């Protein structure tokens, strides 16, 4: 890869492509038996702002190589960022040595069933993912600057200050294995978040996620955030159950939690998941249909998982009935009973913490707008965004969290006065069971938290109305 991007930041030249590098490393490990090599190249750009002032900007161009070695059902792994031959050979040696040590330490074969066979034919054919055919042109700091300027101007015009982040990423992944796997994928993503605040600290939030930054407009997102800033002093809500309208981002946050609490195949097999004993039973309202759909229009598409297993749509809840959990090869082997990988490995060799869906799609309903969702509510609340969610009781999918930056009372069918932020403690499954209506419109939402190597994921969700949402305090 070489050459400057139009108006953008040139990628580092003279680096082999991830696919070339994966093949090279696999060749170095040819004598090491069962081996998988994963190469990831992240190029990304972040531009943060606070008080309508640019604060920090970060440009990343990093390659990492992971080698997984398998010996008698035991795995060992090694990661390196140095790309010279000696360093790569050392990584293959470390992985092999680790797997051998694990095998020697155990009295019997290990729990790993072996690297998956390639599911493309013929073996060796590259499974190209969904990324754009050429350089991703939008890692251009000038584009970020323009988006920030648009957000600042909009906030300024409303007497507010803008806080947030613009970020775009281009992550190429290649996986090659001694079983003939040879796949590549490229995931591009873009995200813009704006929080508008007044001098008193009252704030409103809006965000957009897409595969391309062209879909994001700093001024429009800032305007939406500004619309949510309370213009009067917020009132407090007493603890208790209330009907609630959850906007798209709030729904996405709940489903993000549910993904690991309920649909993690390892948790299910170990008896700690929220769907233990519930597959095939009604767990949600009939209007609820939830799937993991990596090729759904409007999602952040992904071709395969961290074991190179192709991704496909998995129905998780159909018309309120729990249908499935997801697996990688490790959790499927533990689950037994014919379970197979569903293409949800988060790490090479399967994560010790299980498999989780990362392309959730919640089907929409009939409501034309948030206003229509609010219309039947005599007294309840509207929540734009949820924050700091954490499980309280995993088996019941009971979580706690708070609202922020856009919480309003609903009175006599209308979103009315601003509310002080609330704390809720409720079961996500109960919320889905008590869902009365969903908007027809769905939107891609994301937590956009990029720790470690960038892994962009999001959920396509409607807004919804549910009854009995348990407010347990203020925030």
């Amino acid at each position, binding site marked *: 890869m070489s050459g400057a991007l139009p108006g953008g*930041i040139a990628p580092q030249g003279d680096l082999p492509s991830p696919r070339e590098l994966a093949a090279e490393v696999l060749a170095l490990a040819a004598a090491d038996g069962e081996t998988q090599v994963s190469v990831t190249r992240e190029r990304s750009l972040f531009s943060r702002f*606070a008080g309508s002032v640019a*604060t*920090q900007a970060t440009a990343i*161009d990093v390659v990492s190589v992971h080698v997984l070695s398998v010996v008698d059902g035991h795995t060992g792994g090694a990661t390196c960022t140095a790309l010279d031959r000696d*360093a790569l050979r050392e990584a293959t040696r470390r992985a092999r040595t*680790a797997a051998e040590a694990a095998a020697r330490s155990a009295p019997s074969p290990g729990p790993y069933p072996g690297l998956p066979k390639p599911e493309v034919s013929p073996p060796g054919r590259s499974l190209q993912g969904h990324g754009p055919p050429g350089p991703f042109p939008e890692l251009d700091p000038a584009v970020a600057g323009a988006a920030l300027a648009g957000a600042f101007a909009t906030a300024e015009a409303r007497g507010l200050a803008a806080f947030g982040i613009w970020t775009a990423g281009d992550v190429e992944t290649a996986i090659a294995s001694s079983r003939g796997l040879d796949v590549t994928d490229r995931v591009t993503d873009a995200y813009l978040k704006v929080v508008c605040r007044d001098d008193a600290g009252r704030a409103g939030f809006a965000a957009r996620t897409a595969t391309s930054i062209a879909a994001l407009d700093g001024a429009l997102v800032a305007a939406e955030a500004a619309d949510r800033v309370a213009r009067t002093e917020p009132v407090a809500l007493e603890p208790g159950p209330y009907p609630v309208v959850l906007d798209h981002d709030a729904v996405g946050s709940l489903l993000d939690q549910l993904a690991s609490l309920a649909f993690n195949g390892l948790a299910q097999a170990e008896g700690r998941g929220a769907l233990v004993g519930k597959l095939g039973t009604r767990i949600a309202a009939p209007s609820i249909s939830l799937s993991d759909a990596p090729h759904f229009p409007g999602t952040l598409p992904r071709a395969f998982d961290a074991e190179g297993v192709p991704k496909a749509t998995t129905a998780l809840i159909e018309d309120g009935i729990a249908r499935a959990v997801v697996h990688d090869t490790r959790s499927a082997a533990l689950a037994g009973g014919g379970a197979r990988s569903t293409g949800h490995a988060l790490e090479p060799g399967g994560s010790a913490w299980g498999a989780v869906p990362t392309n959730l799609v919640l089907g929409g309903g009939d409501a034309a707008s948030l206003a229509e969702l609010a219309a039947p509510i005599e007294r309840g609340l509207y929540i734009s965004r949820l924050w700091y969610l954490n499980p309280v009781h995993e088996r019941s999918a009971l979580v*706690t969290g708070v609202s922020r930056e856009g919480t309003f009372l609903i009175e006599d069918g209308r979103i009315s006065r601003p509310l002080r932020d609330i704390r809720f403690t409720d079961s996500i499954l109960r919320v889905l069971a*008590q869902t009365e209506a969903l908007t027809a419109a769905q939107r891609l939402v994301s937590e956009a938290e990029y720790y470690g190597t960038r892994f962009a994921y999001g959920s396509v969700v409607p807004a919804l109305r549910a009854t009995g949402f348990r407010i347990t305090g203020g925030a």
Partner: protein
Amino acid sequence: MHALLADLLDAAPGGCDHVEARIVERAWESIGVRDDAVAWLEHELSTGLGVRVRVDGAWGFAATTVLTPAGAREALARAIAVARAQPRTGAGRRAWAATLSPVPVAVGRWSSPWRRDPFAVPTEEKLAHLTAAQAALAVDPRVVRREASYEAIRTTTTFASSDGSRIEQTLLECGGGIEALAVAGEEAQVRTYPSGHGGSVAAAGWEHLLGLDLAGHAPRVAGEAVQLLSAPPCPSGPATVVIGAEQLALQVHESVGHALELDRMLGGEAAYAGTSWIGPDDLGTLRLGSDQMTISADATIPGALGSYGWDDEGVAGQRLLLVQRGIVTAALSDRTSAAAIGLAESGGCGRADGFARQPIVRMTNVSLEPGDAGTLADLLADTGDGLYLETNRSWSIDDRRLHFQFGTEVAYEIRGGELGRLYRDATYAGIAPRFWAAMDAVCSAPAWRLHGLTNCGKGEPGQSAHVSHGTAPARFRGVEVGASGTIPASAAQLDAPSGMVG
């Protein structure tokens, strides 16, 4: 590495009024043994360079793994391009990096203390130790998953800046823990030791893991996991609570440490991690807690995860009092935030997670100073009746660091000054200043321990900081326990076919 950085600094064009660069070499090893088999055994060697520049008042930062002069200069060019593309500061607004607080030129080396290098310990020895520890959890068939884990990290950072600083530091971290998952019917409970967040990690060597005596604690841990399956839910309502040191460490972290980060006060984290209910004008006057509450931030404690010779801006690690007898006296700051409020110097809290992240304000080692309440047994005896809460399970706090809710793995009744009945699913909630005002006793120095956290998240892109908190068990009056009030006696209570919309 110094030569590479020197070449990079020399290459910086005249338009850069500040340049600093770090090369971070990290070796990481993690092993988990679960149900008598190795669940994971991973090594990582990463080396990269991050360069930060200030151009016309705007920051730019770029990271690369190509450690050649050409690669470093290319990263510098990207950082400059990024800085130049930032929108100019509008009229009436102050640029985020308008000024930096001054820093003395620092040239030197620092290394954390350790006795036995964990990377030199044979893998077989590590596996045998962990295998024995998790095997000792096999006390009951209801323990369906037994796990022992270990982690070691060696981080060598070479830093150079246009201020003239040249620093090399090495931090070695090591630790681990055990976890038992017990399942029966509709109930599943987890019990861990020393904590649930990757165990106990310290700036130390293999000797730290050995000192935890994982195998020795295992039978108790597994036994408690089983007992929790049938234990009654923790009672709800206002109560006198004694909070164990490990849970108190997270309480300090969430409701004090983060609230006193100056960049949060100034709005720098408003869109993500949040702000603070405490402002710069409160320093020196605001009462945060009782007279029993004295909080220090100390980057010089041997063995603590947030200790160093210099932070990632080249500012010397230091100790300062954040709260003195309940009054907030200082904030955690870096060069940018310190300058923003006119402090004479940075508090030395500018830290970055690896080479691909730029420094932001982070905690160092934020600790509740010990009191005079004696040992835990002494405190329980003095308490009479109440609840004892131990080992964090769940945590949540609002974006201003004011309203919190925590859950612990276990709660014990305190009756007649002794521990009694075991309870499950304990939670407690509060508002930070009211909670800390209700603290009326802190155990003494012999009961004070450092607790390491390796998963403190902040910043965009996200950064995980490693920090330690020194705490001793403490007592709080009138705490709202079971504030959620919604943990079911059984999961069946939340299966709601009768109320389901259809």
